[in-house]
């Protein structure tokens, strides 16, 4: 098992290195020149060359990539002499734009992203799964049709559209909510929740639809299973039959999808965060791309990819815990 974990982690690392390499080369192709950007509006070619040297942009791409990877593993030192800056493990470099360590930027923004993602996840899981279960149990009923229509609608709504319509209704017109802003949970939990409600609803509208549909499908599947018939034949109360024998197996694929969605969401609530102006990792990415801030883009990409890959790993492990058939023969 340990060996397996190590192997999986090695594969994960390899995938991340490849992603890193691809990201790296793409930003080599990008027309924006960070040195130029750093040079400002009054600039001379000599100055640009000088800046290039200090940023390490004059070295070969391969060497730069090597430095970068090395930095992640061992940390690295920028510059020489008196003003040398130590960038400790895991060093993802410094932002060209703000000169801040990328790692710091990421960890700084993670709480916002986590707040958004987890809150939304709780919302969509409860709403989506509950709606899906009820729909499956009352297949063909009015409720079923209404719920599934709503789910389809939720899936078809573009996030930014939902977001702005919500904002227009709840904030501009009704004024029941403030404009989203960053309120750390630790300072003011109520304010935090208030500021997060709209992003949560926005994401939940989309995902609750997805999950309701999946849940319904899976529930119908498992309700048709022979062991559910067995459970009924045993004379179990219907609630137990549904919960224990239908829902539990139906949750397995949901766990898989949930893990992957959450992983993807943490690295990529690009649009939600942009629309609501919440400084999470997604917004960081959007800004970094707009500013050709190569170290930050690389950092976010790696970070996001790492989340996805680790989420996949976590899903597999959870699967092993939940499913005796996989757990067996360890």
């Amino acid at each position, binding site marked *: 098992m340990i060996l397996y974990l190590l192997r999986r982690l090695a594969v994960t690392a390899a*995938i991340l290195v490849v992603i890193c390499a691809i990201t790296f080369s793409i930003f080599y192709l990008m027309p924006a020149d960070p040195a130029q950007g750093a040079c400002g509006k009054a600039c001379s070619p000599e100055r640009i060359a000088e800046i290039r040297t200090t940023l390490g942009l004059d070295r070969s791409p391969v060497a730069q990539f090597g430095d970068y990877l090395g930095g992640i593993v061992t940390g690295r030192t920028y510059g020489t002499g008196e003003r040398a800056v130590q960038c400790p493990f895991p060093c993802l470099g410094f932002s060209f734009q703000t000169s801040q360590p990328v790692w710091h930027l990421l960890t700084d923004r993670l709480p916002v992203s986590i707040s958004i993602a987890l809150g939304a996840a709780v919302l969509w899981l409860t709403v989506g799964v509950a709606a899906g279960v009820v729909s499956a149990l009352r297949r063909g009923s009015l409720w079923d049709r209404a719920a599934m229509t709503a789910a389809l609608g939720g899936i078809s709504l*573009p996030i930014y559209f939902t977001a702005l*319509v919500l904002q227009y209704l709840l904030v501009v017109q009704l004024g029941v909510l403030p404009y989203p802003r960053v309120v750390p949970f630790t300072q003011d939990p109520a304010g935090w929740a208030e500021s997060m409600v709209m992003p949560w609803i926005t994401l939940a509208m989309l995902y609750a639809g997805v999950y309701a549909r999946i849940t319904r499908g899976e529930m119908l599947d498992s309700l048709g299973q022979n062991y559910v018939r067995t459970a009924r034949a045993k004379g179990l109360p219907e609630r137990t039959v549904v919960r224990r024998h239908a829902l539990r197996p139906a949750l397995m694929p949901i766990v898989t999808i949930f893990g992957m969605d959450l992983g993807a969401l943490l690295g990529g609530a690009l649009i939600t965060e942009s629309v609501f102006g919440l400084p999470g990792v997604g917004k960081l990415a959007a800004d970094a791309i707009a500013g050709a801030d190569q170290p930050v883009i690389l950092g976010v990409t790696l970070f996001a990819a790492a989340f996805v890959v680790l989420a996949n790993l976590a899903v597999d492990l959870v699967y092993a815990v939940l499913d005796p058939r996989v757990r067996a023969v360890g």
Partner: protein
Amino acid sequence: MTVLRRLSTQRSAALALAVVALLVLAAIAAPVVGWLTGNSPTEFHGEAVDPALGGLPRGAAGGISAEHWLGVEPVNGRDVLTRVVYGARVSLLIAVFATALSVLLGTTLGLLAGFLGGWVDTLIGRLMDLLMSFPGLIFMIALISAAPGADRRLLLVAVLGFFGWPYVGRIVRGQAMVLARGEFVAAARVLGASRRALLLREVLPNLTGPVLVVATMSIPACVATEAGLSFLGVGVQPPTPSWGQMIAAAVPWYAADPVYFLIPGAFLFATVLAFNVLGDAVRDALDPRSQRR
């Protein structure tokens, strides 16, 4: 074609089909719409907006009037209806071509992976894993802005198609794997069929169903992603209208001129919804066991 017939018997599917058909028709007939309303998608109508108010359309509800049935854009006064129908062209074309690309790539690679197995499967499987763990949107934006000179429409097709194929590939691979182990493939092998024949004659025809379903599902996803990319600033070049482009432009105006924001949004929503309904229906039609409806 039996699929089509079965679709038309379902009310919601028939409605969705009608919506899609109408949109396609509108897109094709965009010049006709322009001619009917007497507007072009790029012509400015300075008189329809009030510069003193920052270019807000004159009149109620975003400047809806006899000349401008769905109002005008703030600032420049372009006709929204004309732009929406021309935008449909761009959005739908990009989505269809991107889907075609991802279906082509996904089917080919998924088929090879699922059927051949072994190292081919490992390689393609890893590639799909890799692509799917990429933060796609970030990458698409980066890629598109990395190639500023190229035609944005082609670029969008390429990027959407490229990041879309693993989703097709995964499904095709799974199906191909099941089929390859299936007895009718074994039967063909016993009869001496070559690998090529097995792939093309025995396995591939059985994949049309799932591929059709993912394709129908992929079109709305592409429409939405194209719009999202436009929203994030990497859409088609102006003044070509696309829905995403229009929504992105309307975002700052959502409070001042909600009609302007709602119209392209509503079109986008209707399209995506229609395709999704259609996708569901296609799946149900192809899979009689499905108890979804």
